[in-house]
């Protein structure tokens, strides 16, 4: 184990940088081979041949591929994601405007699903093979089978009419996030949390069952410790490690669900930005968001890995 922690950190940093480089290069390649006529999207259907040529020149599309790639990479390194084809706003500005709504959505839902997922998983494992456990398993199956938008639409259908009657301008685009913050966020939080809950419950349950089969747990039981203490103190702590790891891995999957939840509930977050850009063919925005999200994913995984390396020296091995 030569090197230890500093070398491990360095290796993980290099790996993260490699992922970012690979993803951005792939994006460039896709863009380059895509048959989408960029100048048409910007110039509109009635642009003349000269206008189209001018747009191509402004974007540097008439230059050799390598020059284009060089400029693309240079811009990325300076944190410039380009401008929207639709209204010319810098993509970074667009993303910064939309980020708070998404972060609030994820933070609230994350707290909900992590807490209740762990609680349900512990319940299932501690009461293994009882009706409680079977109820938990059935719940997990339904959760895993429900497509995100079906649940969101059903929630909206069942509850939103009531909210409307209570005078809350429930789910229309427009009013700033602060207005009726809680009333507007409860349903999106519930929908997103329910979707993620299932896999966390299953993961916690499996990890707990493993841990509860260990010798030291049998020792703790043999010592005559109360069952509650055995499960919560001796069982839960080691069982949480894989669950926390999953949080890092799930950042990417989460983004997919947020796109859907934001669309259904009319939250003006990053997900809505993607959805609107898909409809408009606004590729710089879609690519900007993809790269930003990849950055978040890579950072989250790096943090989880580093946390593990601090806690468990075995991980530092190559």
């Amino acid at each position, binding site marked *: 184990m030569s090197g230890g922690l500093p070398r491990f950190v360095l290796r993980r940093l290099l*790996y993260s940088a490699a*992922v970012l480089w*690979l*993803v951005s290069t792939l*994006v460039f390649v*896709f*863009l380059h081979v*895509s*048959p*989408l006529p960029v100048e048409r999207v910007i110039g509109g259907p009635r642009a003349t041949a000269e206008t189209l040529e001018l747009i191509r020149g402004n974007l540097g599309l008439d230059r050799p591929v390598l020059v284009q790639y060089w400029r693309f990479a240079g811009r990325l390194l300076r944190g410039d994601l380009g401008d929207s084809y639709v209204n010319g706003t810098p993509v970074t500005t667009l993303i910064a405007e939309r980020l708070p709504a998404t972060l609030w959505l994820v933070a609230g839902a994350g707290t909900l699903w992590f807490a209740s997922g762990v609680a349900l998983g512990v319940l299932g494992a501690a009461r*293994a*093979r009882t009706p409680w*456990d*079977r109820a938990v*398993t059935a719940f997990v*199956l*339904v959760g*895993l*089978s*429900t*497509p*995100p*938008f*079906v649940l969101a*639409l*059903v929630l909206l*259908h069942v509850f939103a*009419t009531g909210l409307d009657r209570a005078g809350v301008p429930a789910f229309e685009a427009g009013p700033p996030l602060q207005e009726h913050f809680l009333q507007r966020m409860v349903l999106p939080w519930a929908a997103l949390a329910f979707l993620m809950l299932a896999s966390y419950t*299953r993961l916690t*349950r*499996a990890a707990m*069952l493993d841990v509860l*089969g260990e010798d030291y747990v049998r020792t703790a039981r043999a010592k005559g410790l109360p069952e509650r203490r055995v499960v919560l103190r001796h069982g839960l702590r080691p069982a949480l490690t894989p669950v926390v790891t999953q949080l890092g*891995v799930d950042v*990417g*999957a989460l*983004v*997919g669900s947020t*796109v*859907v939840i934001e*669309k*259904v509930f009319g939250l003006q977050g990053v997900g809505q930005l*993607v*959805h609107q*850009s*898909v*409809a408009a*063919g606004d*590729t710089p925005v*879609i*690519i900007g*968001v*993809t790269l930003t*999200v*990849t950055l978040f*994913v*890579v950072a989250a*995984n790096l943090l989880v890995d580093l946390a593990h390396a601090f806690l468990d020296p075995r991980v530092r091995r190559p």
Partner: protein
Amino acid sequence: MPFQVAWDRLRRDRLAVASLVVLLSIAVFALLAPLWAHLTGHPYDRTFPGTGLDVAGQPRGPGAQFPLGADRLGRDVLVRAAYGTRVSLVVGVCAALLATVAGTVAGLVSGFAGGAVDALLARLMDMTLALPGLLVAITLATTFQVSSPAAGLALTTVVIAFFSAAAYGRVIRGQVMALRRSEFIDAARSIGSSDARIMVVDVLPNLAAQVTVLTSLQIPAAIVFEATLSFLGAGVPPPTPSLGSMLGEGGEVFRSAWWLLAVPGALLLATTLAFNLLGDGIRDALDPRDGAGRRR
């Protein structure tokens, strides 16, 4: 025969048998889509503003003319749901099979070869898992501007397969690495079997149970992914109906037209739930020791 034993066990699992029956009925319903179109006289892409919409232009609910109601353009929801289910099943099954083949090959090679090949493949799989799959799929669908239904189906299937293959590869790789150290592999090597022969003849059959279970659980995941893509307008291009795009189109008026939400939503949920239940049943049947509920 282990599969004979497993089949006998599966047959006694009432929940799994019920799921199988539900899936078969859904498949028959989807296969007979042209028959529904013929019986109702409503092709899936034709609009019937005269009979399907009321005087205010709102879609009519279930009735004699439209058994499951009409959508906002006055198209038949029953017929479209049947064609949409076809899309879900085709994409789900094809993507899962593709992912099975690709993931098994990657996992087998990676776990068996070890060294630099393994390091590279394992890192690639890790990277793929870290990518936001749905966003990449949306980016691809928008940049390539697919317009023909067949190309749309193919692109969606390949993208889904690509992202699920990585998850597969990791599981298979772990299995192979564990198997590689077992004595029967040493025995095969000592009688002079080549690496390729050991991989195919000795290791692969030992993975069959795992692969079957993974595939059966991958199908519902692929169906949900396709539906989500189509719901966002980045999946199979219109006018080909997909359960996801039907829900996406119905989204704004479903408070007055519940059938636009209920019909595709219920079909989608029934399909994925039945596949998941069946997958769980297959896992328990193939490996009764390891069924999650049957430890200790």
